[in-house]
Structure formats: structure tokens, C-alpha cells
């Protein structure tokens, strides 16, 4: 509602054990092509605990009113094996009820990396004790997440909010136009920049290769998201034109060993820009999904 492209996906409880729930979200065509996921929020409705149950809990286990709700991304591999990745975890009080929000951006990032849009997003939600040990509270047994039994009107069903930005407007444009000069209004792009190592005094006589290299640089500006979005996530800085992919630069240098110069190879990381993007400082850097 507050994002330019707002999608809301209703989920279903597929399996519910005593403390673990498996949520299934059909994601096909939910994320527009050429868009960037800013944040994905999972909303779960915590049902109020009946007063009688609360009084019984106070009598039997007065130490803590808290339980831990953990969200994991679940992948079912082709060979049938499962793997999970911890996405978000927070404490909830049994005295509160209502919508609880979890940041599941990383889970959607993982799902995107699978490149199998027809497969649903699977989220495993578990309710556990606040902590383990002999004095641990059993408050977690009182936490009920709607709607294990649908209320009929969809109220309380788990929801997945997807906040995206259209990269056609908010992204970078690839390589700069060599003919057009870069001005304040130039959209973020990658511009050629030659670094002449031979012309650098400090490199004289010991940097043997290369004589220079095409480093590229990111220039131009990025369109800023709507104010409503920056209000919602104040931790996100303005979108800036930055190098999002880089490569290393190998060199041959001559170092004196035992009084004699000896050529050797060294590789300098992140020396050449491969891709420029618009990105906000503070935004999540997606973890790479291991095969």
C-alpha cells in the first residue's frame, strides 16, 4: 500500500504440528519482471489467549510470558531432501495478540535464486520456548497463529507483502552513452575510465604488467523512491549509483629479494567495475545460495 508496486500474497497453512507450521505461497507472477525486491514482510496473526488459560499459566509457570517465533526458508530439493535457512526470529508475548511482522526478504531472495517461478515459496514457522533449561517457561504452548482453522473470510490468514521498485525507473542503465557528456541529470551508468599505470611515479620500474587498464566508473544519479517508502524504512539511505559487480586485476610486479629483482604475480581485488547499479545504503545484500 505504501510501495509503488505493492503485492500481497495470501498463504495457506499446509502442515501444522504442535509448534511448527509450514506456509506455502504461490509466487508465480507476483514479482514483476525487471523489478527489485526492497522488502518482503510476512504477517502472522497471533490469536488472543483465553483468560482462563492465562490464569492457569500464571499459576503454573509465572516466570515468563514470552515465546520465540522463528521463520525459516525451506527448500525441497529434487532428490527429496530438505534444507532450511534461518530468516527471522523474534519473541512474542502471550499477553498480546494481533499481527506480527517478520522480515522474510532473504527467503524471497533465496527463492528467486532458484529460478523456478512455478515452485511455491515455503516458510517454516516454529514456536519455541524463550530459552531452554529447568526454569524454562511453557508459554510457547499458548501461542496460536491464525488461521490453522480458516475463519471463512480470510481474516487472520498469513500474508506476504512484497515491496518492489521498478528498475526501468529506479535502476541503472548499463553503459553510458559515449557521445553524450555526463551531466547532473544523467541516469546511473558505467563509464569507461582508463588507468595509466605507466604514468604513475610510484609504479616506475617495479610494476611490469599491465601498462594500464580499463577500470570503468559508475557515474550519474538514481531516481529516489517515493517518500512513503523512505518513511516506512528509515534505515534505507538514498539510492546511489554504485559498482555492484567488480573483477580483480592481476599484475606482474618486481620485488627485490636478496638484492635481486624477482618478477611475481599479484591479484588486486575489486579493481574493475563490471556493473553499476542503484542501491540504498543499508539495504540487504543477498546471501548467495549454496548449490
Amino acid at each position, binding site marked *: 500500500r505504501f510501495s509503488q508496486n505493492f503485492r500481497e500474497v495470501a498463504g495457506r497453512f499446509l502442515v501444522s504440528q504442535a509448534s511448527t507450521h509450514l506456509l506455502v505461497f504461490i509466487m508465480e507472477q507476483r514479482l514483476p519482471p525487471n523489478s527489485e525486491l526492497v522488502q518482503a514482510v510476512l504477517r502472522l496473526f497471533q490469536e488472543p489467549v483465553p483468560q482462563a488459560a492465562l490464569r492457569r499459566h500464571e499459576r503454573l509457570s509465572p516466570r515468563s510470558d514470552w515465546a520465540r517465533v522463528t521463520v525459516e526458508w525451506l527448500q525441497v530439493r529434487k532428490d527429496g531432501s530438505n534444507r532450511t535457512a534461518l530468516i527471522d526470529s523474534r519473541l512474542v508475548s502471550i499477553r498480546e495478540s494481533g499481527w506480527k511482522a517478520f522480515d522474510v526478504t532473504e527467503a524471497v531472495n533465496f527463492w528467486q535464486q532458484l529460478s523456478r517461478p512455478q515452485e511455491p515459496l515455503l516458510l517454516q514457522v516454529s514456536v519455541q520456548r524463550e530459552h531452554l533449561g529447568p526454569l524454562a517457561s511453557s508459554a510457547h504452548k499458548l501461542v496460536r497463529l491464525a488461521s490453522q482453522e480458516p475463519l471463512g473470510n480470510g481474516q487472520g490468514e498469513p500474508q506476504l507483502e512484497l515491496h518492489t521498485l521498478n528498475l526501468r525507473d529506479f535502476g541503472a542503465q548499463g553503459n553510458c552513452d559515449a557521445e553524450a557528456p555526463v551531466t547532473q541529470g544523467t541516469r546511473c551508468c558505467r563509464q569507461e575510465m582508463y588507468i595509466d599505470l605507466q604514468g604513475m611515479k610510484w609504479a616506475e*620500474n617495479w610494476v*611490469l604488467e599491465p601498462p594500464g587498464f580499463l577500470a570503468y566508473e559508475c557515474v550519474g544519479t538514481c531516481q529516489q523512491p517515493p517518500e512513503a517508502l523512505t518513511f516506512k524504512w528509515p534505515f534505507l539511505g538514498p539510492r546511489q549509483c554504485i559498482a*555492484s*559487480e567488480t573483477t*580483480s586485476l592481476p*599484475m606482474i610486479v618486481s620485488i627485490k629479494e636478496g638484492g635481486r*629483482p624477482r*618478477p611475481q*604475480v599479484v591479484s*588486486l581485488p575489486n579493481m574493475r567495475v563490471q556493473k553499476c547499479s542503484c542501491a540504498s545504503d543499508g539495504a540487504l545484500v543477498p546471501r548467495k545460495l549454496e548449490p
Partner: protein
Amino acid sequence: MTEEQILGSLLQQLHLGEAPVLDKSDVEELVTPAHVRAQYVALLKRSHEVRSRGK
């Protein structure tokens, strides 16, 4: 990218405190061995294939 950044990265990789000073006479007769050149070319090829994700 500035000169200082390139020099800083190079010194860091080589674990050096400052840029070495070599005379022209030190490198005039210097020949890069074939295995060093082969290693350089292999890294050059690899750097075109492997990209690292920045911030």
C-alpha cells in the same frame, strides 16, 4: 579509483609498508619467467569470468 587506492591495494596484497624503489638498471635486463607470465595470463582470463558482488 584513485592512484592512492591502487597503490594501497597493491601494498596490502604484497604486505609492504611502502612502494619499493627500483632503479632502471635493476629491471633493464629483467626477463619475466614463462611460468610467471603463464600465471598472469591465467588470472587475467579468470578475472574476466569471475565477478564478485559488491555492496
